[in-house]
């Protein structure tokens, strides 16, 4: 990474499998980089203070809050956002499960929940109830009441197991 002039920094970040090289303000947050520079507005900016989880993305295989992370901290790393989850028009089983279980109401928290779920299932394809709760504990939803979200994760686990699919 080279500093070209004060306050601008060049970063190389792989977003959803595509390598991007950008000249950005050095204090840009990762969520703003994704939303403003990459036009990937699926990642939501909720609280800005690491409380709600709407901004969750997967960074090098781990779920993180993109609103309390500088884009320079992701330099040289690989970011996966909600836009990279589906295969074209074919939804990912986790996305399908969220729809089928009624786990989506206003939908603002959903990208964060799906990214947290995906990060969990990539590491642990058959999590126990308490492990799901712990992994999703950092995401808040104000509409569904959470039970449908837990149901959705269980549904996704069952379907992916049946189909032998990996997260």
């Amino acid at each position: 990474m080279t500093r070209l002039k004060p306050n601008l920094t060049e970063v190389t970040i792989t977003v959803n499998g595509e390598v991007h090289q950008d000249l950005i303000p050095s204090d840009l947050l990762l969520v703003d980089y994704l939303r403003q520079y990459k036009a990937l507005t699926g990642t939501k900016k909720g609280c800005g203070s690491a409380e709600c989880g709407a901004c969750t993305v997967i960074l090098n295989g781990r779920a993180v809050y993109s609103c309390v992370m500088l884009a320079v901290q992701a330099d040289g790393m690989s970011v996966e956002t909600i836009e990279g989850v589906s295969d074209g028009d074919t939804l990912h089983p986790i996305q399908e499960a969220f729809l089928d279980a009624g786990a989506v109401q206003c939908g603002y928290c959903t990208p964060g929940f799906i990214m947290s779920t995906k990060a969990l299932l990539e590491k642990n394809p058959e999590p126990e109830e308490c492990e799901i709760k712990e992994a999703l504990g950092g995401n808040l939803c104000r509409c569904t009441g959470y039970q449908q979200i837990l149901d959705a994760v269980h549904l996704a686990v069952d379907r992916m197991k049946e189909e032998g699919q990996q997260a």
Partner: protein
Amino acid sequence: MMDVYSPKTLEEAIRLLDADPGLKVVAGGTDLIPRLNQRLESYDKLCYIRPYPETSGVRTEEDGRLFVGASVRLNETAEIPELAPYTALVSAATHVASYQIRNQATIGGNILQENRCMFFNNQVHWSDVNHCFKWGGNKCYQFPQSKVCMALFQSDVAPVLIAYGASVRVRGPEGEREIPAEKLYNSWNAKDPKNQKSLAHNEILTGILLPPAEEVGRSSYVRWTLRGTFDFPLLSCALAVRTEGDAVTRCGICFGAAGIRPQAFPAGADAFTGLALSELPAAAKGLHAEAAKRIQPFRDTHLDGNVRREKAGWLLEAAVAELLSPDNGKHTWFRGSAELMAPVE
């Protein structure tokens, strides 16, 4: 607009900090960046401390101690086999905040986190008129008679290090030095009324030095929270017990979220030493009054100081029960939070 420097080496980072007193260090960012986003603090310049080779990984030192790099992410502690015998450390590190935060936050950042206070961190509307110490003013709303900031220190990892008798290693322009974990929080003084750790501005924490696992022995960590996850502890307790046969030969106890710094409980450790493990639960029952003395009467949005004091003995009992439980450290969902909320008798 901030200028964020990203030095490529640790030496370069120390040089930058040495040359510029206005530079603020950021590593994982989960402590500082929320406050920046909330406009509670602002800086012209940040120095991003990336994981350097000197601050990464876990290795055994020549003297048998285990070095844990300051850049190790909190969730990584559960994946490092060398750390498995340090039950309380892994338990504390893997129950901080939420899963996402633990993937970002470093263990070094956790023990150097800023103290928190319901007046400062909750953006009380009058705080920008009548400034407290953290705002650059001259009063503390927690303790109006105090000459220094009395915000609460809520690190989960720090009390464990103190119970273990661990040290930390810092590097500055003059080289490296070691600080016993307990001394890291001893620098409150009238000259700098904001909470400060015993680190000079130009020094960077490179890692933690844990005593060998066999010297530490068994250990447990319990935290009392309102929510089952994603919460700061209202109070926490770390317990480490080395045994020979069944008799306790060394004991360390430390309370977290108990004041402006972690509060070691040497009277409790002395009372436990020499006892058999099976005698510890009864001994802990008799230590309620002593334990309460170690808790500073700090109130936050959830709790007043008296309840915090009353619960100290209860928490020590819970730490003993956890230590003796075959499931010590195995919970992913902390049991007992609801039980702990039962009214004080």
